[in-house]
C-alpha cells in the first residue's frame, strides 16, 4: 500500500505530465480544467492513469465529479483506505 506522501507525489507527477505545469507549481486548489488547462478527455485520462498506477477502482461517474487536484487526492486516499 502507498503512503499518502507518495500518493500525492504520483498524482502531482501525472497531473504535470498531462498539463503544462511543473509538479512544484501545482496546488491542491487548482481546478483541472480552468487552472491546469486539461480538457475533459485529458482530465479523465489523468484519473485513469492514477487508477492504473495506484491500482484503484474508480468508476467513470466518480471520476467525472472530480474538479480540483485536492479532490483527486481525496478520492485516491479514500480508495486506498487512508481517509
Amino acid at each position, binding site marked *: 500500500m502507498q503512503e499518502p506522501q507518495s500518493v500525492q507525489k504520483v498524482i502531482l507527477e501525472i497531473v504535470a505530465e498531462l498539463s*503544462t505545469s511543473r509538479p512544484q507549481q501545482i496546488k491542491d486548489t487548482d481546478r483541472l480544467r480552468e487552472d491546469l*488547462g486539461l*480538457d*475533459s*478527455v*485529458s482530465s*479523465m*485520462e489523468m*484519473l*485513469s*492513469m492514477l*487508477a*492504473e498506477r495506484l491500482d484503484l*477502482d*474508480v*468508476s*467513470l461517474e*466518480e*471520476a*467525472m465529479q472530480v474538479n480540483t487536484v485536492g479532490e483527486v487526492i481525496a478520492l485516491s486516499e479514500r480508495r486506498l483506505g487512508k481517509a
Partner: protein
Amino acid sequence: MPADGAFDGEGEVVQALLRMVDGLLSEVRPLRNDQHSNLPAPLLSAVAQAGLFGITIPERYGGSGLTLGAAAACVRAIAEVDRSLATTLGLHLGLGTRGLVLFGAPTLADRYLPDLAEGRRIAAFAATEPEAGSDLGALRTRAERWGDGWCLDGQKIYVTNGGWAGLLTVAAVETTGSPPALFVLEPSSPGVLIGREERKLGLRASSTVPISLEGVLVDSAARLAAPVGALPILEQVLSAGRTLLGAGCCGAAATALRLARAHADQRRQFGRPLIGLEVVGREIALFEALAAAADALLAVTCVFAEEPPALARRSAALKVYSSEVAWAIADGAIQIHGGLGVMEDTGLPLLLRDLRVARIFEGANDVLLTRLGAAALTSPVEEAAPYALLRGAVDELKSAHGARAFLRHGALHRLGRLWVIAEAGAALERAVQEARGSATAGHVQIFQAWARGQVLRTQEELVAMEVVEGVLGTKVGRGVPS
C-alpha cells in the same frame, strides 16, 4: 453537395457560385496537371478572378463573407474534377485563412485579408514538423519574445501551398510544453527558407514543401489569440480545415460513384449489363447509400460552423467517414471497371492516388478515432436511434474498466468508429426526414444494414483485441491524442 442543405439564406448565392465553378472546371485538365505536378498559373488566376479565394473572407476586406458551408460546396464541386485544385483552395479557405479571419488583430487583417480575398496571396499553414506529426504537443518551433514582437525558429514539413504561398500561419510554442500559438508571417521575410517540392503519390499538382524558419522576426500583432475560455485556436482552425477536406472527399466519392455507375450500366458481361449482376448491383447500391450519408454529414457539420466545440466533433467525424468512404468507393469503382480501371485515362487511378492521403493529413484517422472514442466516454451520447449501439458499447467499456477505460486506446479507437458511423447514420436520417439533398429512405435502409455489419465486425475486433493483448501482455496506452 446538397446545395439546398447547409446554408439557409445563402442558397441562391451558392447556386450562382457553383455555376461559376462549373464554367471554370470545364477548362481544368486534372491528368495533365498531375503529370506536370503543377496547377497552371492561368487556372489559379481564373480561380482568383472568380472570387473563390475570398468566399469566406468578410466583405469589408473584399471577400464574399459567406459561410463555411458555401466554401464546402465549392470545394466539393472542384474535387469532383481536380483534387489538387480543391486542396489548394480548401487549404487557403480553411487552415490558411480561418485563424486570421477569426482572431487576427485589425492591423493584421487590414494588411493581408484584401490580398487573400483576391487571390493575390495564397495562404498556407505550417504545423507539422519532423518530430511532431500526430503529436502536436511535441512541437519544437519556438517563438521567443524579441523587443515588442517575436522571433521564430524551427523546421516545418509537408506545407501545402507552401511553394506558392503569399502568407503563412505557423504553429510555434513559447516555452517547452506550452500549448501551440499561431503566428502569421510572410514567406518573403528574412530567415524563411522554402524547400524543394515533394514528389508525392497523389495530389501531385498541389504544392507541398518543407519550410525552415531561422530567426524570423514578426511584430506583436502577428500572434493570433483566441479569447480566454474558448476552444484552443489550433483546434478551431483544424475544424474548418477538416470540414473542407471532408467536402473534397465527398466530391471525389461522387465522381467515383458516377464513373462506377456509368460503367456498370454500359458494360455487358454474361449477357447483361454489369449492374444486372447481383454482386455489382448491390455494391453500387451500398456506395450510393454511403456517399449520401457523407453528403448528409457534410451538411450537418456545416450547420455547426459557428459553434466551435460542436464543429470540432462533427468535423473530425466527417473527415474520418468521408475519407474512408471516398477511398472505398474509388477502390470499388476500379474493381467494377475491371482491367480498364487501372488505365490512367479513366481518371480512376488518379482519383485513388489523390484520395490516399486524405486518411492521413489533418489528423490521421486513427488518431481522430481514438480521440472521438475518448470523447464518447465523457459526453452524453445522443438519443437518436443510430446512437443506440454506441451507447451500448460505451456502457460495456465503462463497466468493464471504469475510469481505466481511457487507457484502452484500442477499444477507444473502435468506439470512435461506432461514433462516426452513428453520426453519419443520424445525418442521413435527418436529411431524408427534411427531404434535403438526394438522400432517400432506401439509402437509410441500406446504410442501417451496413452499419449493423460494421458493428458486428467491431465487436469481433474487440474480442480479437483481448486475444492479442493476451499474447502481447495487456497494453494500455497513455496520451489520448489531442
